[in-house]
C-alpha cells in the first residue's frame, strides 16, 4: 500500500534522512521507532508531502506521490496526524472535525463519518461547541485523531499519539487504534517507547541518526539485543 524507497531528506545543507526504505501493507499496523532526532517525523512529513525528498521515491497504492502537494496526497486516502496534536485552537471541536473532511472525496460522506468519529470518541461530542484550545491534552489528541479520520483514510499515520497522555487516556487511544484497524485502516505510527510500540504493532522499523538499523516482526524485535543497544546505549 505504502512504499518508501531510499529517500534522502535535507533541511538546507543538513541531511537528516539517509536512504530510508519502508513499507506498509493493507491492514497492517506498523511502528516507527527511534530516539529523539533520529528523523522519524521528517520521514512522516516527507510521506505526506510537507517535505520533498532530494532523492528516492514514495508510492501510495502504486502511484508516485513524492512530487505532489500535501493537499492532493490526503485525497488518496493517506492521513497524517502531526506531532503535538496541532488542532486549530480557535475553532470549535465540531469545526475542526468538519474541516478534517474538507477534501472532495471525504466531503460527500461528512455527516456519516462525523457520526462514526463521535461513536469512537463520545467525549468529542460532549465538547462539540468548545474551542479546541480549551480541551485537555487527551481530548486534543482524540480531536487530532478524529480530524484525521474525517478524511476517510486507508492509511493513518500518527506521530507520537501517546505523548504526554495519562495512562487512562493512553489505554483509550490504544483501544481506538484497534477499532480503527479492525475497520480495515492500516496504521503507521511513531513512538519512542519500545514496549508500547511493539506491543501494538505487527511490524516495526528502528531508526538511528536518520538511518534504518533494524526492521522486523514486533515479537522478534522485542527480544533483540540490537534494539536494547539503540535505546539503552548498551
Amino acid at each position, binding site marked *: 500500500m505504502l512504499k518508501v524507497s531510499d529517500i534522502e531528506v535535507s533541511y538546507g545543507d543538513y541531511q537528516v534522512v539517509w536512504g530510508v526504505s519502508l513499507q506498509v501493507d493493507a491492514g497492517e499496523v506498523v511502528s516507527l521507532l527511534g530516539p529523539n532526532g533520529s528523523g522519524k517525523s521528517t520521514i512522516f512529513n516527507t510521506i505526506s508531502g510537507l517535505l520533498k525528498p532530494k532523492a528516492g521515491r514514495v508510492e501510495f497504492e502504486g502511484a508516485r506521490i513524492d512530487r505532489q502537494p*500535501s493537499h492532493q496526497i490526503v485525497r488518496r486516502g493517506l492521513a497524517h496526524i502531526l506531532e503535538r496534536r496541532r488542532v486549530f485552537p480557535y475553532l470549535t471541536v465540531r469545526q475542526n472535525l468538519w*474541516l478534517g473532511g474538507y477534501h472532495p472525496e471525504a466531503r460527500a460522506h461528512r455527516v456519516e463519518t462525523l457520526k462514526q468519529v463521535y461513536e469512537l470518541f463520545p467525549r468529542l461530542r460532549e465538547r462539540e461547541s468548545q474551542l479546541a484550545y480549551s480541551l485537555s491534552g487527551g481530548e486534543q489528541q482524540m480531536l487530532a485523531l478524529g480530524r484525521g479520520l474525517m478524511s476517510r483514510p486507508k492509511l493513518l499515520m500518527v506521530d507520537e499519539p501517546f505523548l504526554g497522555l495519562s495512562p487512562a487516556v493512553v489505554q483509550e487511544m490504544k483501544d481506538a487504534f484497534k477499532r480503527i484497524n479492525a475497520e480495515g485502516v492500516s496504521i503507521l505510527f511513531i513512538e519512542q517507547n519500545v514496549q508500547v510500540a511493539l506491543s501494538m504493532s505487527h511490524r516495526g522499523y528502528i531508526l538511528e541518526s536518520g538511518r534504518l538499523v533494524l526492521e522486523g516482526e514486533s515479537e522478534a524485535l522485542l527480544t533483540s539485543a540490537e534494539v536494547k543497544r539503540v535505546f539503552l546505549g548498551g
Partner: protein
Amino acid sequence: MTREIVIQAIISGLLMGFVYALIAAGLSLIFGLMEIVNFAHGEFLMLSMFSAFWFWALFGVDPLYSLPVTAALLALLGLVVHYGIIRHILRAPMLAQICATFGLAVFLRALAQFLWTPDFRTVIHPLVEGRVEVLGIFLGLPQIVASVGCLMGFTLLYVFITRTETGLALQATAQDRQAASLMGIPTDRMYALGWAIGAACVGVAGGLLSTFYFVFPEVGFQFALIAYVAVALGGFGSILGCLLAGVLIGLVEALGGLLIDPSFKYLIVFGLYLAVVFFRPQGLFGRF
C-alpha cells in the same frame, strides 16, 4: 457647548468608525493569515478612490454604481500583488517582507502622482449628497451611506469567515498552515484569496469614501495609519476586534477633536493606542 454638539460628534465618530473598521479588517485578515503586514494598504485605498473617481469623471458613473467594479478591481490587484510579490517572499526574513510591501506602497504612490498629478480631486454632485437634520443633529448623507455600506461589507466578511466552508478553511490556514494542508486545504490558494478579500474590503471603503473625501495620491496614508492602530488595538488577526477598535478610534477622534482641539485628535487616538499597548499588548481581542 450644547448637548446636540456632543451627540453630533458621537454619531459622526460612529459613522467614521465603521469605515475605519472595514479598512482595518482587510489589513487584519491578511496579517492573520500569513503574518505579513501590508504596508501598501493605504495605497490600495488610494487606488480604489481613484478608481471610483475616474469612473465618475470619464464615464459619468457614480461611485455608488461603480462600487462593485471598484471592489472587483481591488480584489484583482490583491491577487496580482500576491502572485507577483508576496508568494516569493513568504519564507524570506521579516525585513525583506517589510521592504517588499513598503516598497510597493512607495511605488504605487509615485505612480499615482506620475499618472494623475498630486492634485486634490472631488466627485462633484454625487448621487447622494447634502445632509439631513434629525432632532437638531446634522448628518452628511454621503457619510451615512459610506458608514452603512462599510458596516454591511464588514458583516458580509464576518459571516463569510465564520459561517462558510471556505471561510473556515481560511481560519484553519491562519491557525496552522501545515495541519490545514494535511486536511486537503490548498493553502496557497487560501493566501491568494486572503489578499483578494483583504483588498476588496479596502475597495468598498475607498469607493464609498470618494463620495465625500478628497481624492489624491497621498490620501491613503492617514487612513492606513489609523488602520494599523485599529488592528493593533483590536488584536492582530481578530476581525471582530477591528470593528470595536475602528468604532473606538472614530469616537475618540470625534470627541477629542470637539472637547480639546481638532488638531490634537490624532494625539488622543495614538495616546489611547499607547495605553492599550502598555496594559494589554495583545490588543482587546488579541491572541498573540
